[in-house]
């Protein structure tokens, strides 16, 4: 039914954006964004509030006009094409269902606007509602539906005309946590089934990691990093990304020596060896940011000679693991996670421990860029 969603052009970009800029007065909401989305890809835009996610989506949908740059869809420049001619489906955070139209009329709306004949229209509305598992709700008014159902109607309305790209701005933001989890799975499944190209805005990192093929981390109108969820976690390109995705210990250090195996660093609590992020160059004596994920820090009871000496400040049980809050020699605090059954999980406050981390798990970021 919804075949035009299917990946048609091999690995050709369904959408490419070049140096897109949007200013609101002195605020640069989109600051030179370039991006390629492949057909059939699920891409998330993830970033803190006010970072420019919605603005980027509005530019793509054509509700805002860019001050510079270019948007191409399947090799057609659509930068100046009005929103009703863009072949883009959009799901809004608050669904934006038309309250005076029934479910069927809502879903039929984009078809009616495109002059699709009535018989064909009805069949396609039915098919779209079937896709989102809402058959039998044709004549309901939006006010008679639950949040999750409204969300599905909005989705059906956005896919019924088989647009080249689906944009979603926090489509699950208004749902409670449990329903949100459920809808994440459904949405992802549906996207796979349709082969739809999706650009998905969220500020929920878990959601972005769970659903996306790739995630663009947006900060202050710019893409900090565009990568698979795995890469974002294992190799954050900046301290910002490291901090934004998952848990991380961030602290300052100074470059002592550059070696082929890694950078030797001096920190307030002792020497350590780390791996520079790709693309950054460092020199001896430079101040840097260092990031280590809590689960990559090894904790040993007692004062071993080869680790960083520390004392237990607190241990907190999280269910699947235990977080150890360690006070380092210089007074700063690092978090490490250990398995609940480890001996280290049951250490008392003030007991001596030593921490260590493998060089590949110690990320070295340029200072000041966070």
């Amino acid at each position, binding site marked *: 039914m919804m075949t035009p969603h299917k990946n048609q052009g091999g690995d050709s970009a369904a959408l490419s954006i070049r140096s897109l800029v949007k200013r609101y007065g002195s605020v640069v909401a989109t600051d030179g964004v370039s991006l390629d989305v492949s057909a059939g890809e699920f891409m998330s835009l993830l970033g803190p509030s006010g970072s420019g996610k919605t603005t980027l989506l509005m530019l793509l949908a054509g509700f805002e006009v860019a001050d510079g740059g270019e948007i191409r869809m399947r090799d057609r420049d659509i930068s100046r094409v009005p929103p009703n001619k863009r072949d883009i489906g959009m799901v809004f955070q608050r669904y934006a269902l*038309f309250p005076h139209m029934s479910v069927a009329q809502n879903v039929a709306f984009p078809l009616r606007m495109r002059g699709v004949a009535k018989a064909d229209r009805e069949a396609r509305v039915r098919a779209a509602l079937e896709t989102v598992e809402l058959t039998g709700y044709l004549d309901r008014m939006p006010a008679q539906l639950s949040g999750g159902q409204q969300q599905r109607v909005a989705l059906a309305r956005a896919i019924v005309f088989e647009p080249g790209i689906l944009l979603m701005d926090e489509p699950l933001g208004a749902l409670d946590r449990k329903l949100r989890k459920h809808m994440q799975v459904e949405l992802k499944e549906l996207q796979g089934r349709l082969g739809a190209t999706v650009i998905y805005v969220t500020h929920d990192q878990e959601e972005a990691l769970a659903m996306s093929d790739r995630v663009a981390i947006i900060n202050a109108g710019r893409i900090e990093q565009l990568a698979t969820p795995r890469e974002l976690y294992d190799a954050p390109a900046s301290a910002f990304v490291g901090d934004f995705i998952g848990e991380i210990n961030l602290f300052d250090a100074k470059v002592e020596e550059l070696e082929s195996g890694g950078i030797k660093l001096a920190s307030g609590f002792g020497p350590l060896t780390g791996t520079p992020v790709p693309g950054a160059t460092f020199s001896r004596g430079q101040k840097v940011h260092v990031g280590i994920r809590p689960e990559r820090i090894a904790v040993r009871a007692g004062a071993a000679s080869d680790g960083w000496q520390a004392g237990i400040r607190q241990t907190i049980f999280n269910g699947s693991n235990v977080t150890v809050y360690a006070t380092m020699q210089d007074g700063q605090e690092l978090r490490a996670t250990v398995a609940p059954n480890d001996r280290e999980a049951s250490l008392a406050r003030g007991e001596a421990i030593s921490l260590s981390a493998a060089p590949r798990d110690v990320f070295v970021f340029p200072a000041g860029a966070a």
Partner: protein
Amino acid sequence: MSMRGGLSRSTAALMALPLAALMIAAFVWPLVAFLSVSLFDPGFTLEHYARLFATELYLEVLGETILTALIVTAVTLLLGYPIAWMMAKLRGRWAWIVAACVLIPLWTPVLVRSYAWIIILQRRGVLNTTLASLGIVDQPLTLLYTFGAVVLAMTHVLMPFMILPIQSSLRAIPEELPRAARGLGASHLRVFTSVILPLSLPGVMAGCLMVFIIALGFYITPALVGGPRTLMISTLITQQAFELLNWPFAASISTVLLVLTLGIAIVFRRLLNVDRLSLHA
């Protein structure tokens, strides 16, 4: 309506009591007393109603009044909708300016506004002198004391009653609805016809009803601007009551006007089922 503030039903009723008492004493009671004059003279009689419906002149005036009210309603709607739309759209300083232009006339007495129209429309009035000095007309036009003048002046007086309810229902439409419609393929025109217009209908209905009903009973403006030849039903009532001192007959015409007004209000609500259209159905 649910009770929000935690007031009990009886407390609320108690608080409404003074106003209810005032309404009954100052409005309902005189009205009933006045209307009963039309039926008891001194014994029960339908004589006055019989006379009303048997006299062609009175029926003609009634018809004319309804027609005038309809035309005025249509004109205020056509002119008022775009203004309401503008008011709903504008932000900042211009919003204030337009709102002031709509509201200031509302705070100006009807008498003043009607006299203003006389000054503009009379033979040697502002409009005629301007047209003459521009060489557009040789002879002054007869503008005052015409049906057109009545419609024009009534439209002006009643405009805010049309604009304000439409404006408020337009404002209640969430911004993302027209945006969504546009994104789903609607041209600007179709965004208007399939989303904005239907969602503003409750305001349109309220405005039309209000303007129509007020227009039905309009007195000062038609009397001043329309001159002696324009007879509206309210002029007729005044004539009977104060010039001919025929109170029972005046009361019977008033009753017909009241019943007509109520009837129209009810039919309006039934036919268009305003509640179904509202945003929070």
